[in-house]
C-alpha cells in the first residue's frame, strides 16, 4: 500500500480538494492515493466509445466471406474491445491535464483525483499487451498485428504527437478508430481485402465531420484546454467548409462497395439513403453561420446522426452480405 499515514484518504476529501491534489500530482512520480475503485478502471476504458469500435469490428468480421467459430469470434471481439479500452486508458493517462480543464472530461478518474497516474499507465499497458497476445494465440497474426498498429496509432500518433500540435489531429488520428472493421475481417480470414479497406476508408473519412460537428458546439471547452481543434485555430467558417468537403469523399466511399459488386442492392439502397441524409445535414452545417445565443441545433443534429449513420450502414452491410452471399 502506498498510503502515507500522515495523509488523509483522498476519497474522504471534498471534490475540489481532490482535483487540486490530483493536478499537483501530475508532475510527481509516485502519487499517494488510496487504491482506485474498479469502476474507475472501467471508466478509463471509455466504454461508450468502445461500443462503436466493437460494433464496427463485429460487422467487419460478420461481413467476411469465411465463417469463424463463435468462441473464436467472441474472443476476437473481446480483444478488439480490450485493445480499444487500453488505448482509451493510455489516452486518459497522457491527457489528464487537458481533461482537467474541460467540463466534458473533468469528471474522469484522473482529473477528478480518484486514481493515480501510475495505476492508469500500468493498467493501459497491461491491457494492451494482454489483448494483443490473446489475439495472436487465439486468432491469428494478421489480426494481432493490426490491433497492435491501431493501439500504437491512437496512443503515439494521435494522443502524444498530433492532438496538441495540429488542427488536423482528428483527420490523421481518425485512422485509429477505423481499424476495427479491418481487424474483424482479418480475424475471420487471416488477411485484408478491398471491402474492409473501404470500411476503413469510410470510418476514416467519417471522423472529421463527426468530430468537427462536436468541436463546433464544445469549442470553448477545447479552447480552454489549449487543444488546437479546427474551430479554435482556423475559426468556424473554415471548420464548416471542411465538414462539407470531407462529406463528399465519405459519401463516395460509403456507396462504392455497391457499384464495385462487393455488396448487394440492400446495402446500396440503405447506404445511398442514409448517406444522402448525412450529406443534407452536413450541408446545413457547412452553409450556416452561428448567430447570437445560437443553440447549435444543426451541429448537434449532425453529430448525433453521424453516430446512428455508422451503426445503420455497418448493420446494413452485414445483413446484405448474409442475404446476398
Amino acid at each position, binding site marked *: 500500500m502506498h498510503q502515507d499515514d500522515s495523509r488523509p484518504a483522498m*476519497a474522504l476529501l471534498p471534490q475540489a480538494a481532490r482535483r487540486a491534489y490530483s493536478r499537483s500530482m501530475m508532475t510527481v512520480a509516485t502519487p499517494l492515493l488510496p487504491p482506485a475503485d474498479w469502476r474507475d478502471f472501467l471508466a478509463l476504458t471509455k466504454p461508450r466509445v468502445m461500443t462503436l469500435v466493437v460494433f464496427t469490428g463485429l460487422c467487419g468480421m460478420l461481413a467476411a466471406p469465411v465463417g469463424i467459430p463463435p468462441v473464436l469470434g467472441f*474472443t476476437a471481439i*473481446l480483444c478488439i474491445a480490450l485493445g480499444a479500452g487500453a488505448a482509451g486508458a493510455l489516452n486518459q493517462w497522457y491527457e489528464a491535464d487537458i481533461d482537467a480543464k474541460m467540463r466534458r472530461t473533468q469528471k474522469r478518474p484522473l482529473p477528478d483525483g480518484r486514481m493515480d497516474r501510475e495505476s492508469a499507465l500500468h493498467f493501459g499497458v497491461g491491457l494492451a499487451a494482454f489483448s494483443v497476445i490473446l489475439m495472436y494465440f487465439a486468432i491469428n497474426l494478421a489480426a494481432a498485428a493490426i490491433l497492435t498498429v491501431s493501439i500504437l496509432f491512437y496512443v503515439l500518433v494521435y494522443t502524444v504527437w498530433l492532438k496538441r500540435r495540429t488542427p488536423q489531429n482528428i483527420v490523421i488520428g481518425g485512422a485509429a478508430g477505423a481499424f476495427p472493421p479491418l481487424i474483424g475481417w482479418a480475424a475471420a480470414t487471416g488477411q485484408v481485402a478491398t471491402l474492409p479497406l473501404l470500411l476503413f476508408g469510410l470510418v476514416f473519412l467519417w471522423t472529421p465531420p463527426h468530430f468537427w460537428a462536436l468541436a463546433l458546439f464544445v469549442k470553448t471547452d477545447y479552447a480552454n484546454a489549449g487543444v488546437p481543434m479546427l474551430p479554435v485555430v482556423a475559426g468556424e467558417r473554415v471548420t464548416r467548409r471542411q465538414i462539407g468537403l470531407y462529406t463528399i469523399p465519405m459519401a463516395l466511399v460509403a456507396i462504392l462497395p455497391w457499384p464495385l459488386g462487393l455488396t448487394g442492392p440492400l446495402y446500396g439502397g440503405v447506404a445511398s439513403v442514409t448517406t444522402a441524409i448525412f450529406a443534407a445535414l452536413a450541408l446545413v452545417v457547412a452553409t450556416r453561420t452561428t448567430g447570437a445565443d445560437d443553440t447549435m441545433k444543426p451541429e448537434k443534429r449532425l453529430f448525433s446522426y453521424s453516430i446512428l449513420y455508422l451503426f445503420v450502414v455497418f448493420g446494413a452491410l452485414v445483413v446484405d452480405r448474409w442475404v446476398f452471399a
Partner: protein
Amino acid sequence: MTPDEQDLIRQRQRSRARVMALLLGAFVILIFAIAITKIRQGMI
C-alpha cells in the same frame, strides 16, 4: 491513518479482489473454450 480511511482502503481492496477473481475465472473458462474449439476444428 484514521479508522475511516482504513475502512475505505480495505473496502476498495476487497471489491477489487472480487472483480479480479471473477475476471480470472472468466479467463480460465475462455481459454478452455478456445482450446476445445481449436481441437475440434483441427487447428491444434
